[in-house]
């Protein structure tokens, strides 16, 4: 048998039909659904008189629109169009008989946090969702990617996707990370290296000692941003940490089924002599705590660097860099560590898990946020929130001056009441620093939870290593 990559193995195990030209019907094991990208798909089903083919494999949760303030049970906290979208999901979940976690359920949260938490995401699966950050689930060795609404409808109706195979790319992070460097720094540094289009047409497998050393939460952070690097999906081969995380989750297999699953999962790795179309290697020790300075996730620099000038770039990037600098209101040559911020946002599907909250709380313990700053923590799910309260993290955040919110996407994309105002500058643990992403003319600097916590204390972009 010819050697295969992990991606090849998962792909081969899910081809339900292959046409002569290589177009495949890929069978989908898990379909996650949220309120923003699904209403038109369900409407399409209704109009064609179709049903959901595998409601048991379809899981829905509202997250993008839902307010995260404590009074959200009060309907008035949502704008009318948001409420209509959430109500449409309520109704569609009920009418089509799919698994559902409504806003009132403690298990509600960001779809990419709820899926793994409930054991829906398992190694070797194909997982899709009408959301680009579906790549997150690749941390389990699942082939997971975002799809558009027409494809959502296609999966609902047929449990398959029309696909052609992507190319294989290996991103190896060798050796150990230095203190203060986290999964977020890895994933941002990879994008800084390859660019936002570097992964286009590829599925990335992340490997190497520094990746193996990461917890499952850290691995999810890395895979989450594969999409910002242009890749369709990111993958990490499952190992003991994966099995341990999965075991005992509500929808994970039990007993004999667990043993059978485990036996198959253990075959899921890239063979030694497998073929890679592209290989990127980064030394773990070369990665520093980083922040973004511009309006593309590839605009990454170590916190110790200075703001670049447009002339540092070439080609179309010169104009883009100038536009970014103007938008971000930054002067070339200024040390990044002198950039003052107005707001801190800790949360999102990139960094809204328990470990992220622990890392931020470790920095904040016994400290206060800079006066006048707006700071909020938005746990990724109701269960993350409950656990953080149990571990005493919530008290640390509150004592430091952070708002302690309910679960949702919140200020990651500002479709809900949490938004930046014009010119407001935010240290954010989310994944996109696009113009207007967190609010009209809002300015976003992406970073790790520990770095965001450090920034909250000083009121400036800050090297967390100085506070450790």
């Amino acid at each position, binding site marked *: 048998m010819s050697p295969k990559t992990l991606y090849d193995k998962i792909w081969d*195990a899910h081809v*339900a*039909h292959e046409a002569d*030209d290589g*177009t495949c*019907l890929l*069978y989908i*094991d898990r379909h996650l659904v949220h309120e*923003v*990208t699904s*209403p*038109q798909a369900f*409407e399409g089903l209704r109009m*064609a008189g*179709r049903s959901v*083919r595998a409601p048991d*494999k379809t899981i829905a949760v509202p997250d993008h629109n839902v307010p995260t303030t404590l009074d959200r049970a009060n309907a008035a906290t949502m704008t009318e169009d*948001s409420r*209509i*979208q959430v109500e*449409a999901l309520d109704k569609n979940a009920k009418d089509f008989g799919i698994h559902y976690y409504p806003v009132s359920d403690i298990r509600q949260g960001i779809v990419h946090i709820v899926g793994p938490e409930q054991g829906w995401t398992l190694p*070797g699966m194909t997982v899709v969702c*009408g*959301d*680009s950050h579906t790549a997150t689930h690749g941390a389990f060795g699942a082939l997971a990617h*975002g*799809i*558009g*609404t*027409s*494809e959502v409808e*296609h999966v609902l*109706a*047929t*449990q*398959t996707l*029309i696909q*052609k195979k992507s190319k294989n790319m290996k991103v190896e992070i060798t050796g150990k990370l230095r203190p203060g460097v986290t999964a977020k720094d890895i994933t941002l540094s990879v994008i800084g290296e390859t660019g*936002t*289009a570097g992964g*286009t047409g590829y599925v990335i497998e992340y490997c190497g000692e520094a990746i193996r050393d990461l917890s499952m939460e850290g691995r999810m952070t890395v895979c989450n941003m594969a999409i910002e690097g*242009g890749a369709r999906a990111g993958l990490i081969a499952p190992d003991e940490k994966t099995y341990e995380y999965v075991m005992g989750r509500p929808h994970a297999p039990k007993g004999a*089924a667990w043993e*059978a*699953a485990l036996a*198959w999962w253990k075959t899921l790795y890239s063979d030694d002599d497998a073929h890679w179309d592209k290989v990127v290697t980064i030394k773990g020790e070369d990665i520093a705590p980083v922040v973004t300075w511009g309006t*593309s996730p590839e605009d990454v620099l170590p916190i110790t660097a200075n703001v670049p000038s447009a002339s540092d770039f070439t080609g*179309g*990037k010169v*104009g*883009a860099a100038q*536009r970014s600098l103007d938008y971000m209101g930054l002067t070339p040559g200024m040390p990044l560590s002198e950039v003052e911020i107005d707001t801190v946002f800790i949360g999102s599907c990139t960094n809204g898990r328990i470990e992220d909250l622990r890392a931020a709380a470790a920095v904040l313990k016994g400290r206060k946020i800079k006066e006048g700053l707006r700071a909020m923590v938005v746990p990724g799910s109701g269960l993350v929130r409950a656990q953080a309260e149990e571990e005493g993290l919530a008290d640390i955040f509150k004592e430091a001056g952070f708002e302690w919110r309910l679960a949702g996407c919140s200020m990651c*994309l500002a*479709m809900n009441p949490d938004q930046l105002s*014009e010119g407001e500058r935010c240290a954010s643990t989310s994944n996109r620093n*696009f*113009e*207007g*992403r967190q609010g*009209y003319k809002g300015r976003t600097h992406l970073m790790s939870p520990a770095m965001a916590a450090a920034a909250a204390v000083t009121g400036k972009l800050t090297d967390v290593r100085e506070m450790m």
Partner: protein
Amino acid sequence: MEKFEKLTGIAAPMPLVNIDTDMIIPKQFLKTIKRSGLGVNLFDEMRYDRQGNENPDFVLNQPAYRDAEILVAGDNFGCGSSREHAPWAIKDFGIRCVIAPSFADIFYNNCFKNGILPIALPQEQVDVLMKDAEKGANARMTVDLEAQTVTTSDGESFAFEVDSFKKHCLMEGLDDIGLTLEKASAIDSFEATIGAERPWV
């Protein structure tokens, strides 16, 4: 789905790299449960000021380009989220074809599901088309899907690649779901096999 065969129309130049889905249709317009009506908000934050007045510098507000049917743009067009609202807004505005050196993957796929043809061409060729587009309303470009060519107003022609299955569906205006359901028996038997081999799924 609307068919795409051949189109001759005005091309609007947008020489920016990394035009992301938040630029194409900002998130406040995703709160719809319909597919239609998004065209007025295409590129909203560049096109209008806060009060909703048109920004006269923005290309689609200029008289020459108000009826553009083709967009010529920089590298990595459509990066960002999976929102199909982006192609819905483009289509609703009246644009049927986007030409760029490269596209983000999900956006590229989404175009084909909505009767829009995305064309990736080498940078030098896009540069030529960009120049042609900058001539304004007098410069009509022709996109021929059957022949797989783009022709400038001066008659210079470039060939482009497109997946044969996607081309077929776009030219015929075919509905993917209907096509897939014709293969329902293959899905049934696959489901039965994995049900036995991987019962935990």
